[in-house]
């Protein structure tokens, strides 16, 4: 107990860095970091099954961010006792918030909405996913914490699910002896679009590392496991993040 309190005190006493970080997600869970004014971000990712992800974002004066992406995080199925198919969805997101310490001691806060605008997989009919979340992030030096609430709504074929609330969480550890590396872990939720029975929300746990290879780019390697999948169903993915500042 004393050790836990000591660690907690050390974490809380750690000084945050001067500027907010820029990554808009831990692995899957969103963060409350917004890119600086005039910045543009891009992420390319691929997992061991060959499913790709592309994210592109633009800052609106550091106050908000507009993001467009194509990813396959959502799974769909017509017979969910069998295989679930990754659904490639085009999605757009808008995030608005306040930076860390905007008010003294305040964590960064972001309200985000992400909506589907295109579906590229014919596996299931008319898949759509929308989520709105509030997330808070705090950089404590050695550790960065993220926590929030996500309201997810989804539809597939004739089935629609009302918005359901789920928790979001993320943690980033920055060992001082490895200033360019960080350990990542997060909890997020994505719907599984069952064309027969309707959408069901499933959790997704991720763990990985991020290496800041360049001042403008970083590489991530991670493993993600989903609710309902056995260990062999976990995916290994690699991602490259880049940011261009004005």
């Amino acid at each position: 107990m004393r050790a836990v309190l000591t660690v907690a005190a050390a974490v809380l006493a750690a000084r945050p860095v001067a500027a907010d970080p820029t990554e808009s997600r831990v692995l899957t869970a969103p963060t409350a970091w917004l890119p600086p004014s005039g910045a543009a971000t891009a992420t390319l990712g691929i997992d061991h099954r060959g499913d790709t992800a592309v994210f592109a974002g633009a800052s609106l004066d550091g106050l908000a961010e507009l993001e467009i992406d194509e990813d396959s995080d959502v799974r769909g199925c017509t017979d969910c006792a069998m295989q679930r198919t990754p659904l490639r969805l085009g999605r757009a997101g808008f995030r608005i918030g306040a930076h860390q310490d905007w008010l003294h001691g305040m964590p960064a806060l972001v309200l985000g909405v992400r909506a589907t605008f295109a579906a590229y997989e014919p596996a299931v009919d008319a898949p759509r996913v929308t989520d709105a979340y509030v997330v808070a992030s705090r950089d404590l030096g050695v550790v960065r914490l993220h926590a929030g609430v996500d309201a997810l709504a989804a539809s597939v074929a004739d089935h629609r699910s009302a918005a359901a609330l789920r928790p979001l969480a993320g943690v980033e550890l920055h060992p001082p002896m490895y200033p360019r590396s960080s350990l990542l872990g997060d909890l997020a939720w994505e719907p599984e679009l069952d064309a027969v029975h309707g959408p069901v929300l499933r959790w997704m746990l991720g763990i990985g590392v991020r290496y800041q290879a360049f001042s403008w780019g970083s590489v991530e390697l991670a493993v993600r496991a989903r609710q309902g999948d056995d260990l062999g169903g976990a995916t290994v993915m690699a991602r490259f993040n880049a940011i261009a500042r004005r």
Partner: protein
Amino acid sequence: MKHASNAILAAVLGTAAIARAQPAPGDRPKPDGASGDPRGGPAPGPQSPYGPDPGQPGQPAQPGQPAQPGQPIQPGQPVQVVQQPDGSVELTPAPPPAPRPPRVHKMRFPEVLNTPTGWLLPAGVLYSRDRIDTGGGVSSDNRVGLGDVAEFGVSTTDQVRERQTDSTKERAEVLQPYVTASFRLGVDENRLFKGQPGVTLGFRKSFEREHLGSRTRIAELTLVASKHLGPDVAIHLGGSVWDASLQENADAAMPPDPITLHGQGFARQLRAFGGFEARPLPRSEILVDLSWAPEFCYGCASAAGGPSGAMGAIRLRPELAWGVRYQVASFMHIESGVRVPDIGNANLLDAQIFGQITFTSFALSDAVETLK
């Protein structure tokens, strides 16, 4: 005779020398500098600590002040005719026009995101906004400011929706393009008295739209007040009276009477709307507004029939939108945000991410100002 020849020769040479010293016709004379440098300005005279005496003869008049009689007229300088007491006229240099202060382009946006504001476009200002969203909606809004008291616009809106049944499983579709024309008039903020909010009365009316055999129209009368709460925060509050009509089977030989919103009672036409603006950064604003949009349900009218059945055929749905307006350049703004078309049902699934670009031009306004 010899003396006369010398005098004539001296006069000719002197005249030639003077003529040669004159500038060529059409060339503007350049004042010599104090040291005789032709590139310099006039030689500095003794300066009064209280500034130049405007009434001193022979001195150019100051901008905006009357010239004194007897001043030399410079080539190209405007003159004025002065009637003397004895009936003669005298040309005196007119006072040079006072330099115009640089125009300040004060822009007030006629819309928050979807709702109108109590502000009007300045006179002669051209405004164009184009928007796309993730719901497949495309809209365009083009306006011109008229005399600081009115504005006229033509737009296509993607807010009008249609559905075939009243089923909650059915997703309302965007009915577009839906072309409308608008006219607004009003009074700018603090124009009549200090603290007066900007007030506009606007009317928007659509052209008739035929889709799937049904003809629809909408019209909206709005009265809105906008008030700044400090330099960087403003609120907008207003009320609107809506009307709409739906005529199904319009192509039939005996089409049914159109169903109208005004036939369902005034209470179903009246709605309140509002918006909020805050500028936390010099070039960026946070915008939030609540607006209303009509939705046509084709199957709802024919299922029940009669006036009672018409109640569900035309409905007004509340829309909540929030976003950011970012000034990229003096003539261009980018806006992006979220729009929830049916916030009354907490329908998150239909939320849309939109992006829009707004161009404003003061060129016509400046040209008109120059003509004045």
